[in-house]
């Protein structure tokens, strides 16, 4: 399939996805002798759900870390919204509208659900510190306005009952959901999810899949996600990148990827001739 970067495209199941939001060009990332990512290129398009799959240690999380600035690749270029991105710190990238969740939950354990999501709105709040210090009109109004957005996210994720619970006390599945809420708090342009369903039971996975689809659908958020469960990936994603030992071995729609011999190899270990 050949794509023009500014053109929209239609997926096999009839969804229209937009132009290129983010493009990785020939990314290579090394840790000493270990090559975590080998010359990988792919793009993420407006409004799509883009999955990154591959066995453990394939370099998927490293790729997200490159996108949000924790790792700086030795080679390659990152293009965001049509511009080449210079090396940036993670907090600067957050201000560009890229939010994420982590493979191992990274919530603010001492804070409540509400405060976690409220903290997620950090980039959306502007009142200067001295206005916060005296709780001046603009600071208070901003706090209330943002609280309203947070309440909408809480309703959306159906976590009203744990609003004021310190997140450290919540069960694993709910913590994952709150972490998604915190990322949504930023109203991101691009949302990165690192194994959002890892360690969940079937029911929790279904809930999470539904939330991801709804986020994409209702807010039009572009999503890149890493997932192990092939069933889930095939169900919810528009396009899939497959990685193995740091290299890209497949890229396309779920159907194309499913029938790709190299991918079958990597997943099933079946020899081809």
């Amino acid at each position, binding site marked *: 399939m050949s794509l023009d970067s500014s053109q929209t495209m239609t997926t096999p199941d009839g969804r229209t996805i937009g132009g290129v939001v983010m493009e990785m060009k020939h990314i290579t990332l090394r840790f000493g002798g270990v090559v975590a990512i080998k010359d990988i290129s792919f793009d993420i398009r407006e409004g799509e759900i883009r999955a990154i799959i591959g066995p453990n240690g394939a370099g998927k999380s490293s790729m997200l870390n490159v996108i949000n600035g924790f790792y700086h690749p030795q080679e390659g270029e990152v293009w965001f919204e049509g511009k080449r991105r210079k090396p940036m710190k993670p907090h600067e990238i957050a201000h560009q509208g890229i939010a994420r969740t982590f493979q191992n939950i990274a*919530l603010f354990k*001492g804070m409540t659900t509400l405060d976690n999501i409220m903290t997620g709105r950090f980039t959306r709040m502007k009142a200067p510190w001295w206005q916060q210090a005296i*709780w001046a009109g603009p600071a208070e109004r901003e706090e209330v306005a943002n609280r309203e957005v947070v309440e909408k996210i809480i309703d959306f994720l159906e976590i009203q009952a744990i609003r004021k619970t310190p997140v450290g006390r919540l069960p694993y599945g709910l913590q994952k959901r709150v972490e998604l809420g915190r990322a949504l708090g930023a109203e991101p342009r691009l949302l990165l999810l690192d194994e959002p369903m890892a360690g969940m039971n079937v029911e929790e996975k279904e809930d999470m899949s539904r939330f991801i689809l709804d986020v994409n659908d209702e807010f039009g958020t572009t999503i890149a996600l890493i997932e192990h469960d092939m069933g889930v990936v095939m169900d919810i994603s528009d396009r899939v990148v497959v990685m193995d030992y740091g290299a890209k071995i497949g890229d396309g729609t779920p159907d194309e990827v499913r029938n790709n011999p190299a991918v079958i190899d990597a997943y099933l270990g079946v020899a081809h001739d």
Partner: protein
Amino acid sequence: MFYREAGDFKTSYAADGQTFPIAFDRWRYMIVVAIGFLAIPLFITEYMANAVLIPFLIWSVIAIGLNILTGYCGQVSLGTGGFMAVGAYACYKFMTGLDVWYVSACEGGANLFFLCTGVATYSVLFELPEFNIAFSVLMGGLTTAAVGLLFGLPSLRIKGFYLAVATLAAQFFLVWLFNKWSWAYNYSASGQINAPTRELLGFEITGPTATAEVKYLFCLTILFLMAWLARNLTRGRLGRSWMAIRDMDIAAEIIGVNPLKAKLSAFAVSSFFVGVGGALFFSVYLGAVEVGEAFGIQKSFLALFMIIIGGLGSIFGSFAGAAFIVLMPVLLKNIMVGGFGWPTDIAAHFEFIILGGLIIFFLIVEPHGLAALWRTLKEKLRLWPFPH
């Protein structure tokens, strides 16, 4: 069912976000404030003020300050005593007319930007007027904020235990500095600083003839304002960025918190509080200060004990911890010396044992301190007399 949250519904997010969302708590708070400002000054005695009330108020300011840095932002500091000293000496300089010198003649060397490489003759360039006490205390706080910012720089690179050691270095350096730097103590022969009489609105706040109730009300007003500022800062965006850094610095970065700004602002705000506390400690409470004695390492530990016992990350806990540490020795002394007739030195030893035991207890059993015990008690009261 003494204490209830049920039936106390909020119809706006502003109401839900206020400091005391529960009507009962709001009433209790107003009553405490009214007692503090109106009732206590009526029957305050010299002993009560000097042994209990004034130290409690001043230590509360300091404990809130340290709690902002350690409890809210997760950066351990053992430099509190040193920062109190900065507040005290800066306040002293502003009270007594800060003098700025320059090199008027430089023999046998080059004069580079006021720095003479040869034999220098100094002259006073200008001297500021003697400021009133409120402004001097404020300047004490602001100067300490700047110094705290400087000593906060290592926190960008090092964490936890190593940062604690770096702040310990600040503690020793600052005490050494105020011992050696004669400009700081106005060249007095004893090396001490003494608070002259200074007024505010016609009332003597400092000096030997200032009265207990005026000193008390001055400290109470400052504490009231400072606690209000701390509360506002910690419930807003800046406070959330501190807590985010404390709980998970990597996640804080990906939501847009600049660790440099969050940590340095915590150091600056915290030091401002500690500096104001140090300025009051010197000018209103002690009146005369020798730096090693008044602002030694023991003060750093005392402040740390207060927030551990009171509760890390809690403004209320800062008050509780300060009250506890100030009151406990007074109570124990009255019981052991006054009640049982024990010698004072044995009583002092017991004081240390009890304090040490309590710190171990809180660290192991209740890391969130008295503030958490208070919360638990409220939960119990809500259910009382039914167990579930």
